[in-house]
């Protein structure tokens, strides 16, 4: 790693004013499980001049329910979320998604805010200067996305405006499916952004000085079934190749789908809502046939790159399984 100034922020405002002072040349650190990789590999076009530690800010590590909303402080560890009985009971999708991140060590260090703000895993973006080469790609201020004509086996199957890297945050996919929002504090004050509006094609909608302070998730409708499936090569220490977060409300007696929300992860630059799949099953009984139809619709608009068409097959299969798993849960 190279040299940088290090500050222990005492308050959120303290951190914001430091970020403003460094005007884009400072980064924040919480668990550091992503940032340390970025710094060690010297991935960014310019090395940050300052690192601002958020862990020293008291009161940002909590899980509570207030007025029908789950509130999670940005510094809450993924481990704590995945083992919280409140989250496991009512927001199981999020608990399972957090449980599927990295390894125990990473979940003990990594925070929910950090998971939402992680850098993409694209091989070109992550190429390490310590090996000699750095690709100054579109996401890093260059003009080209190297993955489009290169090895794009893990990239978007739903296009991308110039950059086809995918959002790898498991927490983002799960909390989008749950209709969550992030509370952001910045130089111009506080605002709440729905997570499905939080990501742009090249990263989170955060301006200089912005810090996520809280994740808010509305209480799911009673009896809604939640399913998380993460497809990956090995069973730990892996980012999703494809993930699916589904929340379905089914009528108990005949499995008619009253409401459905299906989110696809790691297939697009942002968590991708499978609206057509949702529409296909709404008002219909869930069975092998309707699940199959919905899964086809989920990938109907997919446009593969030259190495990632297999992800379409996986996505389709996972959507179908998620729908059928929700039905299975309902019948238990």
């Amino acid at each position: 790693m190279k040299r940088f100034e290090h500050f222990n922020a005492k308050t959120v405002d303290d951190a914001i004013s430091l970020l403003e002072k460094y005007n884009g040349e400072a980064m924040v650190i919480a668990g550091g499980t992503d940032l340390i990789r970025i710094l060690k590999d010297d991935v960014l076009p310019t090395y940050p001049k300052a690192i601002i530690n958020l862990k020293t800010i008291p009161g940002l590590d909590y899980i509570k329910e207030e007025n029908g909303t789950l509130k999670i402080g940005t510094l809450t560890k993924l481990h704590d979320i995945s083992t919280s009985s409140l989250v496991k009971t009512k927001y199981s999708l999020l608990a399972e998604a957090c449980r599927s991140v990295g390894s125990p060590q990473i979940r003990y260090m990594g925070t929910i805010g950090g998971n939402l703000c992680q850098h993409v895993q694209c091989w070109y973006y992550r190429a390490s200067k310590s090996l000699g080469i750095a690709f100054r790609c579109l996401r890093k201020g260059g003009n080209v996305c190297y993955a489009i004509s290169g090895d794009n086996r893990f990239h978007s199957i739903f296009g991308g405006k110039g950059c086809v890297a995918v959002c790898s945050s498991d927490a983002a996919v799960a909390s989008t499916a749950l209709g969550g929002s992030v509370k952001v504090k910045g130089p111009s004050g506080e605002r709440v952004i729905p997570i499905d509006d939080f990501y742009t094609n090249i990263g989170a909608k955060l301006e200089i000085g912005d810090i996520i302070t809280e994740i808010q998730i509305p209480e799911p409708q009673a009896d809604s079934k939640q399913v998380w499936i993460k497809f990956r090569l090995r069973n730990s220490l892996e980012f999703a190749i494809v993930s699916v977060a589904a929340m379905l409300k089914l009528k108990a007696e005949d499995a008619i789908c009253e409401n459905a929300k299906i989110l696809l992860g790691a297939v697009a630059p942002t968590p991708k809502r499978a609206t057509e799949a949702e529409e296909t099953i709404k008002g219909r009984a869930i069975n092998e046939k309707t699940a199959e139809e919905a899964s086809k619709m989920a990938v109907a608009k997919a446009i593969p790159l030259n190495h990632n068409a297999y992800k379409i097959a996986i996505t389709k299969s996972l959507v179908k399984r998620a729908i059928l798993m929700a039905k299975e849960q309902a019948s238990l």
Partner: protein
Amino acid sequence: MSFNIIKTDEAEQKYREWKVLGKPVPCINSYLKVTGAAKFVDDVILPNMLYGKILRSPFAHAKIKMIDVSKAETLPGVAAVVTYKDIAHMGIIQTPPRFILTDRVLYVGDVVAAVAADDETIAEEALDLIKVEYESLPFSLTPEEASSFPPMHPEASTDNIVIGAWFPYQRSVGSVENGFKEAHIITEVEFRKPNIKHMFLENYAAVADWRGDELHLWSHPQVGAATFAMQLASILNMPTNKIHVYQCFIGGGFGGKHGEAPIRVAVLAAMLAKKSGRPVKIRTNIREHFVEGHVLDPGITTFRYKVGADKAGKLKAIDALVLAGQGERSSNVGIAYCGDTVFNTYRIPNRSFRAYPFYTNTPMSEALRAYGSQAGVPPLEAAMNEIAESLGMDPVDFIIKNGLQDGDIVTQYLHNDFQLAGGDLPKLVQKAAEEFKWKEKWKGWGVPTEVSSFRRRGVGVAVATHTAWGLPRPNMVKDTVIIKINSNDGTVEWVTDGRDMGSGFDTVVSQVIAEILEIDVKDVVHAPPCSVGQPIGGDTRGSKALQSTVFAAYNAAQDLKRKILEGASSVLNVDSNRLILDLKGLRVYVKDNPSSAVKLSKLGELFSGVLVGIGSCPSHYGGPESFMDPVTGRRLGMKGMFCSFAEVEVDTETGRLNIVKLLIATQSGMILNPLIVYGQIIGGIVHGLGCMLWEGIVYCEKTGAPLNASFIDYPIPTTLDVTENQLASVVIVDPKHARLTPYMAKGISEGVFAAIWGSIHMAVYNAIGVKIREFPLRPEKILKALGKAQFPKTKGVV
């Protein structure tokens, strides 16, 4: 893992006789390792020490037109910068001759310069201040490309064919032409493999310190410290005895710290230390793992194997062609051993092996769990499967009909031929097939054993032979061990220049010594290896330590015992065969009259040097009479015999491949330490599975850069991916299978690693009905094979 040890009566008898050998002795350094007390290279900290960092090439092939280090040199805290301009007389390596730093870089990640500074942060910043202008040159990643490229090492090779120590790369036995004429059926297969890397956890590192004209160096080579010092002496152009190599604990090697792999970092540290006048430590990062050292030899390879058999399924001929991208250089030993695999797994009267190893713009290729069988088995098994299927034969029957047997002639590519002493693939496969219940499971070629919705199961079998005869050739130094007894307390030390890297070699050697000297293994210590004053004998590579080092230790212990007893005999005036060595009691006494004894200290005083024993291993070709077959008069040798049965389940919707059951069987000879054998089998399986399922370095076609060069992007199995209940092993313990060595044992894990690949390949084919002639078997490949990954014709539609 079930660990089914099947012992013959003769084996049982040996185990009854042995007091220390055959027992589950925990590895002698395990306590040091798990408590963190074992010292690795990175634990070495010297006063006033600097830290080095390496500037690496962004080009796969380029000439350095200009390099300016003045800014880096003046950065406060920087003590030295070295480039190719600094090393007129230092750093030449052989085959082909090349300086460690030159004005031409040959792959992305090749070394351009190195900096030493007060800390790593300053060193890293200094790298950014080095200004380099490159002239980019055309580069090749595959053998196919390299064959038509301008020569990479024009001084050594005009056609890009690698100049290794073993040239030319062609050999044949019998007449392939006639063999194919006699054949009823002929099949051909093409098979591909990517570059694979060792994935050990301790990165390449070195600490160098000049004390006057002596170089003191802390390193972790798999070759012993003394061998390493000799290699360095020729590179640094200085006397060997002025190079003190301290071999630290090795944090995993798997062949990746063998040969020249750790040399470059060591030489760069030595250069920086010389220039700065201070000790220098270089510790590479986990990314640099993929560009320092080597990858498996052969590298990026295409195999084309043509096989012929008669109507009864007897093999008649094989014509094997290997095109390999060997990287910037290679010893080509691995490719030669691929030839051994072709020649010595099945009985084929007419055999031809031709290899075309090319220089390509990737890191060099060398050992990975030794040579040959790993890369050589999958294509050979693919070729055998193809012909067995064409004949409609059950693969187990096919192996029983054609597999290598005891007494067969082993045709070695690099060494003289020998007659196989022990080991028999047909018998091994028969036994393992019973254990796996093959006959119940096998449904036919390309036919799943079980289909449940989108999940399909299949079974497969494969065999492998692996080098297990690690005795030196006549022109090589014989491994030597020195044993010393401390006359004050009877404790024992043994010396050889090598270090255990986790395979338990020092534990087994200590057991051998304890067995002969009749003491507890706790009283035996392996001296810390150092190149100065210690004999060569500690290389841990190529499944050889159980032969060469154990042989040397056996002879040394016998030598010591004989000297002591002869000394005591002259003092006590009693024939030495009536004497008992009692190290615990610090004495030698008369068997039937224990009060008649002589103290060890007395012996030490009377006979200078008597308490030191020395022994060497025999050479393979100058060995004892027992190395000759009395009937045929032929020289004998050994090979490791392995077979693997696999049951897999393929999710045909996602392409996910799960291992249901994996059974490994081997004819091990005597097991000297069951704990180690158990661990080595599991280690071999897990490592092999990673390579078969997921591994393989992906290079950027446009730049030649390794794209997945990290432990996240190049996945290896974790404890959640391979669980013990998926695994089974059958070990046939029969001293006859390794009868040439003193304790009738041979190495295990390297062959295990090789054997599983073929069985998984066959099982996947039987599960899904489609052949995939390459590895790894990642979901994208399986789905593509199943026609479920239709790629658009136009590239990059966004």
